[in-house]
């Protein structure tokens, strides 16, 4: 028991004494669970190409360990545990989608040197990046959670798990009922029957351009429900693409475009997704300009409160932000300067300044996207970061290898910063709902954030070198790779082929799809290829939507362009259900019962998915180590 003394009141247990929150037990369990989750999810990211949000898993496991095994009795202690664990896990997507690109690029003889990067410097970059990201979101917490009250559907789900011990049997039944239904649906429909999508459009005889295909995921419906009518503009972005622009193009466009709109996947990849990225950047910049007075007021309010009342006791000091900006920029200058031989101080300075500005912009974009829809455009933001850095490095006359290494070191720091910023905002929303003190939660995030890079970079080297044949031990990586550019593939397909390594990251055993993609992007960027024209045009439109005064719709519409339409459609079902529930059963019902059910839908699918992934992770790790 955690309380100092225990007594009974009307048949119920009451405890006297301090309410446990930031305890060593919570931190240590958070480290252990976070490390386990980070290893699993990092491996899954290399093997399967996707990442899983760790907060819900950490909350449930923490519930079992802290309450079940250790007999702890505090919701807030479990909240700290999940905050620490998800901070550790924040490194898995941040690093595994970026740094392995160096190993993959090293397969080319002319780039074999990129795998010989300075490992301690990379580790320092990742840890420093994580800390910079955490410091940058201090004023954003007040703006996005206290003032704008963004829904953060994932945060609501985690809070629902945390509160379930005290929420009463009925709500708990709704939560677990939703989880069971969602888990069973996922198991039967996706895993057993193999349905990823339901093509309603084809059944109705609609042309493929309408892309009327629903993603088979009750979790996505749950996320839409938690977003409610706030998610409307996200759906609108998707409908504008596939139900308005595509049909118009199919009637009035060039023959090439008329052909392309009938392949919605190609259309998305080559047209709508880059348009969405450009629009997101423009909308974010417009949003920052529009939100600037509010951010300034938030900072002023924090300053005023710190001098006068108790509300300020809960906040990290705002001076930390100013210190972090200066220290962060200084760290980035150091990282850039030391990352590659031949790097001039002026180039390092320029990379650091733009990198710092980008952390702020991308942090706002990702925090707002996660806050409104639960989806994070982290990969797109990483791409832009790397693009900015490569453009600077190339124009400042750095060599190819030096450009790639320096951009990946600084890019990894930026990617970690963005990843940690969005994770922290999500955790702070959960914390708000259970009554956690933000300052303690922010400290917990710092306590966890350093560990993730150590574990994930260690795992990355383990997997890269496990299975390396003894005769190859002394050879450069490029000498022991095989290429797959031979054969009969067309020239268009050849451009997209990834050369295969025989072992390690980038091999068939560990394809690292996201990092492979980034590697090919980096190659293209170094050669000067980037769709800047589409980013510019779309950015202008996003900017205008953001400054239109129709709060937040720029980012939402842009995200609708960016995301696959099947997900948008299923998400829209959830939004519509919430609106109908609010209208027919009332806000109270929707909050009392709809939210636990929706949270259950998210949890059930996530857990079953992890349940299927985990054996593959263990088996894969075992086989890789035995090779």
């Amino acid at each position, binding site marked *: 028991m955690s309380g100092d003394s225990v007594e009974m*009141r009307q*048949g*119920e247990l*009451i405890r*006297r*004494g301090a*309410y446990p929150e930031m305890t060593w037990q919570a931190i240590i369990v958070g480290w252990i669970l976070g490390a386990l989750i980070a290893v699993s999810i990092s491996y899954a990211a290399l093997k399967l190409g996707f990442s899983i949000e760790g907060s819900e898993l950490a909350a449930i496991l923490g519930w079992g360990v802290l309450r079940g095994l250790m007999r702890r009795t*505090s*919701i*807030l202690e479990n909240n700290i545990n999940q905050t620490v664990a998800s901070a550790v896990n924040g490194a898995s997507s941040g690093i595994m989608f970026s740094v392995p690109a160096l190993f993959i690029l090293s397969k080319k003889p002319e780039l074999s040197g990129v795998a010989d990067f300075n490992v301690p410097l990379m580790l320092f970059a990742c840890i420093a990046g994580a800390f910079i990201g955490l410091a940058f979101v201090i004023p954003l917490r007040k703006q996005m959670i*206290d*003032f704008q009250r963004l829904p953060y559907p994932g945060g609501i789900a985690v809070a629902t798990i*945390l*509160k379930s011990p*005290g929420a009463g049997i009925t709500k708990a039944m709704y939560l677990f009922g939703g989880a069971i239904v969602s888990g069973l649906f996922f198991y039967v429909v996706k895993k057993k029957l193999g349905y990823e999508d339901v093509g309603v459009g084809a059944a109705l005889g609609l042309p493929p351009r309408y892309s009327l295909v629903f993603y088979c995921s009750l979790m996505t419906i749950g996320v839409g429900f938690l977003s409610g009518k706030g998610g409307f503009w996200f759906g609108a972005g998707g409908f504008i693409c596939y139900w*308005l*622009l595509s049909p118009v*193009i199919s009637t009035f466009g060039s023959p090439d*475009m008329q*052909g*392309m709109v009938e392949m919605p996947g*190609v*259309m998305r*990849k*080559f047209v*709508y*997704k*880059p*348009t969405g990225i450009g629009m997101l950047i423009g909308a974010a910049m417009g949003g920052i300009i529009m939100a600037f007075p*509010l951010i300034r*007021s938030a900072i002023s*309010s924090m300053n005023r409160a710190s001098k006068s*009342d108790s509300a300020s006791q809960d906040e990290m000091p705002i001076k930390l932000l100013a210190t972090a900006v200066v220290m962060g920029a200084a760290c980035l200058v150091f990282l850039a300067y030391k990352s590659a031989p031949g790097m001039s101080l002026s180039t390092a300075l320029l990379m650091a300044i733009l990198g710092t500005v980008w952390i702020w912009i991308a942090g706002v974009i990702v925090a707002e996207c996660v806050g409104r829809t639960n989806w994070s455009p982290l*990969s*797109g933001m990483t*791409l832009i970061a790397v693009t900015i850095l490569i453009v600077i490095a190339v124009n400042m006359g750095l060599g190819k290898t030096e450009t790639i290494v320096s951009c990946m070191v600084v890019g990894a720091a930026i990617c970690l910063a963005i990843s940690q910023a969005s994770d922290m905002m999500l955790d702070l929303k959960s914390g708000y*709902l259970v*009554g956690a003190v933000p300052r303690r939660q922010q400290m917990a995030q710092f306590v966890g954030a350093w560990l993730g890079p150590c574990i994930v970079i260690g795992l990355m080297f383990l997997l890269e070198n496990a299975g390396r044949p003894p005769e190859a031990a002394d050879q450069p990586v490029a000498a022991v790779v095989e290429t797959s550019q031979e054969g009969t593939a*067309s020239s268009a*397909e050849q*451009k*997209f082929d990834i050369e295969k390594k025989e072992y390690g990251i980038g091999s068939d055993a560990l394809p690292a*799809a996201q990092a492979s*993609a*980034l590697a*090919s*992007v980096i190659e293209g960027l170094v050669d000067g*290829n980037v*769709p800047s*024209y*589409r980013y*510019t*045009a*779309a950015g202008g439109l996003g900017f*205008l*939507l953001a*400054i*239109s*005064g129709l709060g937040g719709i720029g980012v939402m519409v842009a995200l609708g362009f960016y995301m696959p339409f099947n997900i948008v459609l299923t998400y829209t079902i959830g939004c519509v259900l919430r609106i109908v529930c609010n209208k027919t059963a009332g806000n109270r019902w929707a*909050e009392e019962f709809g939210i636990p059910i929706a949270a259950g839908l998210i949890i059930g699918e996530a857990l079953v998915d992890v349940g299927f992934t985990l054996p593959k992770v263990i088996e894969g790790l075992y086989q890789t180590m035995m090779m």
Partner: protein
Amino acid sequence: MKTIGQVLLWVGFLSGSLATVFYAPAEGVGYMKAMTPEKALEKDFELPDLQAVVIPEEGWHLIPWVWYGVSVAFCVIGIVVLKNAANPEQQVEQSSNLSLADLSVRLTQLTGNLEGLLESLDDLPPSQITARIDEQLADDFREFADGRNLITTEYGLDVFADVMTQFASGERSVNRAWSAAADGYVDEAEACLKRGRDLLQEAHRLLNDAAKD
């Protein structure tokens, strides 16, 4: 005027979006032609996530800039018309039926209900404390939050920030009281309810001061 502004904004945006996506990137066309229609319908053809955003050519000619510029002009005019025509109070009232007086009433009810809960706290088992918080406070918190933008409209961002800082801290403190009560920590629950009441009273005072000024 507001409708005209909306129409101009959206006509400009949609037209600009069409201009942005109207012409095909050569790389995309090449990729499309390399595929059979059957393959295009398969899920496996999907490129890795980031790969397709790189189009290895200079594509500035793919955007019809005059068309795009006219569209942007429509958007800008629409935004100007919207800004001039918008009555901010009406905008807020569309999303919430509350007035400033209602916001004040919500805060009065919240502090009053918290006071009542604190008075009977010693007689309540923990499950009753959480139930009372859910039943007596949740609606007022939600309704005040729904109408919060009225404060910006009437008194400006600084007052909004100060009031919402106190309100949000008060709400979070009540949430903490709920968690503490659910875990049986009644002393912590009581302390948090008192702190929540004080913070909400401070929010109310700030709101009243702004009204006097």
